[in-house]
């Protein structure tokens, strides 16, 4: 099995392969020679320079590695080539199993505009708006006038908030159309955008599907991903605090119907907006494994990557809808290398200290280590920290406990932001929607940790300074090959004049 990805998802797939006795081939860019996904693979091959376009997006090079190593399957992870129908077809042509849906299903459901047509055909409720891409601003204005403002412009290809613009007045639509279209062009190679009514204070709730080649498709409950910033998910949980047994069944059945109508196979996710009145609207389908799949695994007790591999081998699903039972509550925090106190600027660089949480109910999918230099070329996600507990409240408190234990030194992370969210009354009461986090961030932040007496801080700082001094006064510092004494590093940074 060749894993055509990097970071935690590549490691996660490699682990699943090991557990199933499948040999693994990793690929890497020049920035990732020392990455954990390489360290855990049986074989590893260089693709090219750091930029994704020259490495992880080079389907041709990846298939060349597959050919050379005799790998008979490729797992694309998420991002990169995972939703690229051409790559899926190239795999098929090369006689290599692509772990995902057939290219035809990917084409039908992966484009937002085509997926909306399929959703209409499958009688799935969706947000009013254009079904196809908009030809020009004039068409956009016409459609917007028909459904009424506010509206949302969206890129037909891709996701992750790129190419999206909310528009509240007709006057602003022209500029927003141009901006969204050019951003979509830049990000996805297609400037096609469509438009739909903006639902007020919607929740983002999605259904996990798993379908086999034998016409069976089960839904594995929902995930709520309403805590977002710039349309990027920040916290995900399963189940949603507001989804009733009945709503889950209705959403699940609608999602499975859509997948079956498209001949869908393997893991997929149907995203919905849900309003206060429990109405759900089809948003889009992600034709791949999602970043946040672990919360579903925690509450269902299943392993989605194992299931992906078994389904891809042609096995029938080992479970029916009746076997799917949700238990407990799981929350995932996406830990990013970014600075919440300074405009969320990315913070690549050397991780000089890493203290990871563990213990009851804690799962971590992480691909960094002490001494790893987080490259600036890729997504800033460092780790997915997941807490499971019998109830939502306990899961939140468990996550807070784990975040307290967590220390990532050398770069900035959003760990402190999670502590703030998890202690926020609205979040704890599940009063969240996709605008929740932006509203929270607009408020001044109170310090979320216990107060540490100032004298204790001064004493601790002095102790470290004195230690650094002992370190540096005795003899010149000696560096390891890739690691050096943190004392010495600290000493130098602080410009100790001793």
């Amino acid at each position, binding site marked *: 099995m060749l894993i055509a990805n990097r970071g935690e998802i590549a490691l996660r797939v490699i682990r699943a392969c090991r557990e199933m006795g499948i040999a693994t081939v990793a690929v890497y860019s020049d920035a990732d020679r020392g990455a954990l996904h390489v360290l855990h693979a049986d074989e590893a091959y260089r693709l090219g320079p750091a930029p994704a376009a020259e490495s992880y997006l080079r389907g041709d090079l990846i298939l060349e590695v597959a050919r050379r190593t005799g790998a008979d399957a490729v797992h694309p992870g998420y991002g990169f080539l995972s939703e690229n129908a051409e790559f899926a077809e190239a795999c098929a042509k090369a006689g290599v199993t692509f772990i995902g849906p057939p290219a035809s299903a990917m084409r039908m459901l992966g484009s937002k505009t085509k997926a909306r047509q399929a959703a209409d055909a499958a009688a799935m409720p969706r947000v009013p708006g254009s079904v196809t891409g908009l030809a020009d601003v004039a068409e956009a204005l016409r459609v917007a006038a028909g459904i009424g403002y506010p509206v949302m412009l969206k890129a037909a290809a891709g996701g992750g908030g790129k190419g999206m613009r909310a528009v509240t007045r007709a006057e602003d639509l022209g500029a927003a159309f141009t901006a969204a279209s050019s951003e979509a062009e830049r990000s996805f190679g297609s400037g096609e955008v469509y438009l739909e009514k903006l639902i007020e204070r919607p929740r983002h709730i999605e259904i996990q599907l798993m379908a086999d080649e034998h016409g069976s498709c089960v839904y594995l409950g929902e995930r709520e991903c309403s805590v977002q910033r710039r349309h990027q998910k920040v916290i995900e949980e399963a189940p949603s605090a507001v989804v009733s047994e009945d709503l889950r069944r209705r959403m699940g059945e609608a999602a499975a119907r859509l997948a079956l109508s498209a001949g869908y196979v393997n893991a997929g996710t149907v995203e919905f907006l849900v309003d206060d009145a429990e109405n759900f609207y089809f948003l889009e389908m992600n034709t791949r494994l999602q970043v946040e799949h672990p919360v579903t695994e925690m509450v269902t007790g299943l392993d989605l990557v194992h299931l992906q591999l078994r389904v891809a081998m042609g096995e029938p699903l080992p479970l029916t809808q009746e076997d799917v039972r949700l238990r407990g509550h799981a929350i995932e925090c996406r830990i990013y*290398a*970014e*600075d919440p106190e*300074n*405009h*969320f*600027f*990315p*913070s*690549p*660089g050397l991780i*000089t*200290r890493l*203290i990871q949480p563990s213990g009851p109910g804690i799962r971590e999918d992480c691909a960094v280590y002490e001494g790893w230099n987080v490259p*600036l*070329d*890729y*997504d*800033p996600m460092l780790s997915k920290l997941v807490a499971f507990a019998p109830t939502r409240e306990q899961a939140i408190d468990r996550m807070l406990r784990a*975040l*307290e234990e967590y*220390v990532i*030194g*050398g770069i900035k992370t959003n*760990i*402190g932001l999670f*502590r703030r969210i998890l202690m926020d009354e609205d979040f704890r009461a599940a009063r969240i929607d996709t605008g929740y986090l932006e509203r929270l961030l607009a408020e001044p932040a109170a*310090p*979320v*940790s*216990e107060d*540490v007496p*100032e*004298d*204790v*801080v*001064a*004493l*601790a*700082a*002095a*102790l*470290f*300074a*004195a*230690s650094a*001094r002992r370190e540096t006064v005795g003899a010149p510092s000696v560096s390891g090959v890739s690691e050096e*004494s*943190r*004392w010495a*590093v*600290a000493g130098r*940074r*602080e*410009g*100790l*004049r*001793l």
Partner: protein
Amino acid sequence: MGCGRAAGGVATVTVWLEVGGEKRRVELPAEFGAGMECSVDGRPIVADVRVLQAGVLSLLIDGRQYRCVLDGDGVVIGGRRFEFEVADPRSLQGRRGAGAGTDGPRPVKAPMPGRMVRVLVEVGDAVEEGQALIVIEAMKMQNELKSPKTGRVARIAVAVGDAVGSGDVLVVVE
């Protein structure tokens, strides 16, 4: 930082720090362990210090336990990071006078390593405080850098496509 010998004959170390904008003078015995008689600005503290790993220590004061982790120029205690700066007393006093005035030219520096993707102004343009000047990209994110003051663009030090390092001066507004 200085060394001395306290009344009891124990070798002591004096550390001058700036923490959270406050100057602090900390005295501590040269040897770490239990029953360390320390002081902060003259206020006595009895501490029990244990270094677990380089840069990680457990501090016990009156039974309260603090896990302290060194992180660059800060110390993380109880999930909060406190920046500090070590100084000798002369330079610290010298620095206090220099300030963050809004007069004169102000540089816009790269807050992280990245690549310049767009320049939104030209040299000589009048800009408002908070107006976006340039866009740099790192980790798939584009970030606008804004003007620190109302003024005029005096210099643009980079071109589109340039790689920039953290702290590099990109634009100067005067």
